[in-house]
């Protein structure tokens, strides 16, 4: 603990600006990557709530036979993605329609109904398991159902679903592209920054080698320091992101009002915060290790033309 303190103190005292620059670059990169992660997961959640509204309705022919009904039921039961299904007979369909349109007046209702014949088909309302609910699966199931005997038509909010799928794809693709670009840039800048700070430390390494320090002894302080800078950068980025999240949430709240969907948004869970800190430390330590290992090879490490 004492050694840790003295290593860090000495390093920050004598290399304040290179350390600050390295940590700053790390912080910026972490913030961007974590920001994208936070944005896409929350957008995904936001869209998933909309996705909940989607369900499949299978309309049956009036002429459907008992065997066909049985086959349809068995078909639903054998489909794993289906969590449950509800039969709605012609009368119930008519009743619910009448209820929803009653405000338009009884004349209108009678006009549609015409004779005493009930024009509404019986149907099955199908509930898809939440975790399996993807646009592709829903479209696939709907297509399959429409081929079954006794089925008149299948509806599943086709138009909306298509847009939803496209939107999700675009967001995911953009997130991937951005993250890749930032990661590549991150690796370059970090390795440059560490390289620059190592050039400053070259002398230090040279002298430690001179007095017979082992490779381990020489590398340890650099790795400790890299880990510290990584943790520091991760902590600062998380802090900045938390503030940004709070501000955006508040402004969304005032714009959207008491929209229920807002409650599905959330910051990173605790375990992820811990994971990010550990990852930060690991990245910092690994970066330092790679760079110091290049200078400190154990044998004839320093080639200085001294004549």
């Amino acid at each position, binding site marked *: 603990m004492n050694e840790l303190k003295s290593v860090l103190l*000495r390093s920050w*005292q*004598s290399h304040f600006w290179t350390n600050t620059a390295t940590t700053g670059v790390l912080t910026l990169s972490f913030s961007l990557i974590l920001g994208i992660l936070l944005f896409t997961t929350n957008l995904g959640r936001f869209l998933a709530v909309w996705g909940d509204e989607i369900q499949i309705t299978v309309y049956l022919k009036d002429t459907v036979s008992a065997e066909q009904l049985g086959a349809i039921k068995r078909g639903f039961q054998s489909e794993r993605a289906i969590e449950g299904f509800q039969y709605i007979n012609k009368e119930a369909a008519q009743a619910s329609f009448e209820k929803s349109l009653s405000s338009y007046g009884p004349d209108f209702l009678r006009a549609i109904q015409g004779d005493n014949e009930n024009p509404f088909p019986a149907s099955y309302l199908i509930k898809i398991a939440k975790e399996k609910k993807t646009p592709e699966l829903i479209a696939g199931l709907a297509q399959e159902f429409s081929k079954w005997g006794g089925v008149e038509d299948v509806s599943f909010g086709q138009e909306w679903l298509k847009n939803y799928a496209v939107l999700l794809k675009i967001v995911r693709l953009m997130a991937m592209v951005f993250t890749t670009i930032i990661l590549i840039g991150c690796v370059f800048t970090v390795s440059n920054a560490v390289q620059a700070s190592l050039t400053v430390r070259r*002398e*230090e390494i*040279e*002298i*430690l*080698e*001179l*007095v*017979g*320090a*082992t*490779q381990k*002894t020489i590398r340890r302080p650099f790795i400790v320091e890299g880990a510290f800078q990584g943790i520091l950068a991760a902590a600062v980025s998380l802090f900045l992101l938390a503030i940004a999240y709070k501000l955006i949430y508040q402004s969304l709240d005032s714009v959207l009002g008491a929209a229920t969907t807002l409650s599905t948004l959330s910051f990173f869970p605790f375990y992820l915060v811990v994971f990010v800190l550990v990852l930060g430390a690991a990245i910092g330590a690994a970066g330092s290790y790679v760079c110091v290992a290049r200078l400190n*090879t*154990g*044998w*004839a490490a*320093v080639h200085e033309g*001294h*004549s």
Partner: protein
Amino acid sequence: MIELSHVYKIYSQSVHALSNLTMKIARGEFVYLTGPSGAGKTTLFRLITCYDRPSSGTVVVAGQNLSTVTPDQVPFVRRKVGVVFQDFKLLKNRTSFENVALPLEVLGMKRAEITARVNDMLDQVGLRYKSGYWPNQLSGGEQQRVAIARALVSKPGLLIADEPTGNLDQNLSNEIMELFARINAQGTTVFVATHNQSFISKGNRRVIRLEKGHIADGFNRPAPQLQEVAAREL
């Protein structure tokens, strides 16, 4: 203490820094290494301190054949040799005391023993009262004395100094050489590269003179004979 046998160091086709060098320095000797710039003095010291390997030939230091040393063993060879450079090579972010303590920290010595030995060593070079000074608060001569204290604090048995007085005036240089003589009297083998003719001609010490990577004629004998040669040729 040091034994070289048919040592070559070839940097490239045209640069033969050392060629067919054979010499022996016994325990307790004080030897000057001299010769013009580019003669190969630093190259020789780099071989002795494991900073480089010879192109061919063998180097034995303190009984250890350096051709068989693995990278893992290098630090342990370096601990047997104290090294002093022209440019001191002190850590700027450590005080005199901390610089001298470095080799003992590397050995993993206890705090109390480090303090005792560093203070004792700083006494020997006359700088105990500047323990807490930073290198940039010390004069060149003082910095070199701190560097010497660092080289000797772990009692290495062999001290190698590559033009240690190159950056110092004559008075300070004399002080440093007197310090080396004292250390040698205590039993440490001393091998010093220098350009300074006054030391070479004054002291009745053994001198090895390098020229273009060879030992110059007549300059690789034990001390007594050398005196005559030096008197004749310098």
